[in-house]
């Protein structure tokens, strides 16, 4: 199993983290900006409103002249408080105040209105443009009044605030992105290292352990737990293996001696025919026990000691053709058609004897179950870089529900109970396939069984 299909997860989490973090930070800063701007705006408006109230009071008390007088007294207010005033007649001509003329853009303005415009003022020998916020309104006798204030400082503050907000957000996002990138890379590295070790362990090397990096983090905790589990597993496997090995060894010796003794007895001719027949039958039973045990040991070896097996260059096409030829006469004796298709050499790294044994098992199964008149087709091909071997027949097949089950040791279909056989054939094939990191599929040949082996591109050897 490759880890590439899982690679996204850590970076996806990191990306999500960056997005949420950025959204949070920027919404806080945007809120601060808008709140501050509003407070500043309100402050300006309150000041202007207070001035307007004062001037309207003057007007009501002393009429236009009083108002003009007040405005003239405040003529120098621009330099001090930044306040602007303008009193103009209905056609926009200045009557009083400290700006030259009614702003063009508001010439047609009627009644009350809040406006913003710009004023050029000469300061320190240069012209500086000041933004101004003002309240326009019309007095009862058609005279218009503009009361405003310089908002340059406020605008500057707002823009500084805006910049600070943008920079702050940008910096936070960058930092978050860097941190989470580092985090996701770290996670990916540790996960890959764990996955690589696990792959080795799955291939049968139970002595490997996950690396503890000494960072006392969750990964170390996980690794240490997994390592404890592996210790336990190795211990159990070891017990199981020694038990199995010594059982096999302890069975081997008496089996060997029993065979030797029966053979010895059979050599002496002075024996009743019935006794001889019984002993010969016993001998063949012993051989059956031996075969079953041999197959079990082979399965155990393929499963457990896979790394120690010799791998060589195997031409699957040649192997398929050779074994099909070997079983050809047997097939025609049983009135079955046995064919082989496959032309180009399909080379892979494998154990020749185990692969041959697996294919022999498949062929013998087919010969056993396909009724006379049927056909068995063996095919070897190379598709999309994979090596594929198929054995298809038109026999009784295997019900879909049982297809996984029959790959396990000693599992046999109910209908085959009467047939001779150990029930180990398919499980040896499955073990050999696992050893070669190949897959085995039992398919419906409609009718019949199609067994397909697929060897991944890692095991296939391409001609250079």
């Amino acid at each position, binding site marked *: 199993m490759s880890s590439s299909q899982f690679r996204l997860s850590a970076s996806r989490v990191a990306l999500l983290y960056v997005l949420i973090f950025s959204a949070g930070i920027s919404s806080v800063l945007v809120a601060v900006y808008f709140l501050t701007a509003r407070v500043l705006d309100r402050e300006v408006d309150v000041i202007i409103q207070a001035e307007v109230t004062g001037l309207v009071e003057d007007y009501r008390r002393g009429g236009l002249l009083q108002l003009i007088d007040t405005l003239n007294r405040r003529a120098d207010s621009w330099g001090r408080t930044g306040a602007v005033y303008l009193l103009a007649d209905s056609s926009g001509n200045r009557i009083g105040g400290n700006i030259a003329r009614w702003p063009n853009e508001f010439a047609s303005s009627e009644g009350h209105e809040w406006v913003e415009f710009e004023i050029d003022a000469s300061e320190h020998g240069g012209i500086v443009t000041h933004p101004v916020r003002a309240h326009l309104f019309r007095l009862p006798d058609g005279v218009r009044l503009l009361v405003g204030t310089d908002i340059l400082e406020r605008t500057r503050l707002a823009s500084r605030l805006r910049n600070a907000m943008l920079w702050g957000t940008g910096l936070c996002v960058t930092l978050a992105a860097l941190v989470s990138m580092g985090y996701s890379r770290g996670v990916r590295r540790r996960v890959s290292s764990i996955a690589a070790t696990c792959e080795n362990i799955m291939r049968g090397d139970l002595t490997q352990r996950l690396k503890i990096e000494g960072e006392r983090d969750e990964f170390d905790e996980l690794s240490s737990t997994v390592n404890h589990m592996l210790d336990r597993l190795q211990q159990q496997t070891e017990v199981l293996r020694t038990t199995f090995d010594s059982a*096999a*060894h302890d069975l*081997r*010796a008496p*089996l*060997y*001696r029993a*065979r*030797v*003794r029966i*053979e*010895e007895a059979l*050599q002496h001719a002075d024996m009743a025919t019935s006794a001889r027949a019984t002993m010969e039958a016993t001998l063949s039973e*012993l051989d059956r026990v*031996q*075969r079953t*045990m*041999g*197959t*079990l*040991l*082979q399965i*155990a*070896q*393929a499963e457990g000691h896979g790394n*120690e*097996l*010799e791998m060589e260059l195997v031409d699957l096409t040649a192997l398929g053709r*050779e074994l099909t*030829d*070997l*079983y050809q*006469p*047997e097939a025609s*004796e049983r009135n079955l058609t046995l064919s082989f298709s496959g032309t180009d050499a399909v080379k892979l790294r494998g*154990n*020749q*004897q*185990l692969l*041959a*044994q697996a294919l*022999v098992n498949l062929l*013998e199964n087919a*010969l056993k179950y396909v009724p006379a008149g049927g056909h068995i087709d063996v095919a070897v091909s190379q598709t999309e870089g994979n090596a594929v071997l198929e054995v298809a027949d038109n026999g009784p097949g295997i019900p879909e529900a049982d297809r996984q089950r029959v790959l396990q040791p000693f599992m046999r279909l109910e209908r085959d109970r009467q047939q001779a*056989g150990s029930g180990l054939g398919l499980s040896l094939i499955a073990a050999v396939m696992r050893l070669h990191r190949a897959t085995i599929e039992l398919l419906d040949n409609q009718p019949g069984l199609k067994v397909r082996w697929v060897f991944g591109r890692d095991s296939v050897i391409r001609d250079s």
Partner: protein
Amino acid sequence: MQPALSKTSPVRSGEASTKLTPSSRVSEAMRLLLIEDDLQAAEYLIKSLREHDYEVVHSPDGRDGLAKATSERFDVIVADRQLPHLDGLAIIAKLREKQDRTPVLILSALGTVDDRVHGLKVGGDDYLTKPFAFAELLARIEALSRRAAPAAQEVTRLKFGDLELDLLARRVMRDGKQIDLTAKEFQLLEYFMRRPNQIITRTMLLEGVWNLHFDPQTNIIDVHMSRLRNSVDKGFSKPLIHTVRGTGYVLKDEQ
């Protein structure tokens, strides 16, 4: 693919046509060293081998076995794979180190896929998995002891009685008539022609001709043999290929 075949040459071809069955050997007895720690089994093997005119020396452990193997001359050594003190493979390695080419047959435990490969790698000559039929062991010992005879130069033609094999033209003639064989049948017949008067077991054929080092459940060899015999013996005055009951086949020119 078949080291056994390329190393072997026809030691005795059929022209002598003397009767040569394992038990009727006239020359001095073959000397055999059996290194086996299972005493009960060894006892039976020794007895049976002696009945077949072998002079057997037994050693129950590896170190003693190696000492015997180097101090005396034997025609064949049969050594168990697992032995006390020094295992079978180490014995072979030590012997080969000393340029001792005595053929060695390794007896190995069941279910060890690569033992054969390792055994042949260190210089073993044949390999047999326990438990085995005595006849199988005997046939293999016979084959090994003959192989030890000085090799003749590579031949292109094999002859046995009126049967003749042209290895270059891949042609078979018997009594002047051409016999058509498939490539595999030719290979099978060649295996027999190179080992005339020798009992060949089915397992030996599976190994030597098909390179299969395990026993299939079905007896596929007999069908192949019956086809070969149909081609080679049918319609001729006397059969050359004979069945040896319970063991295998032999190419023999019987009166």
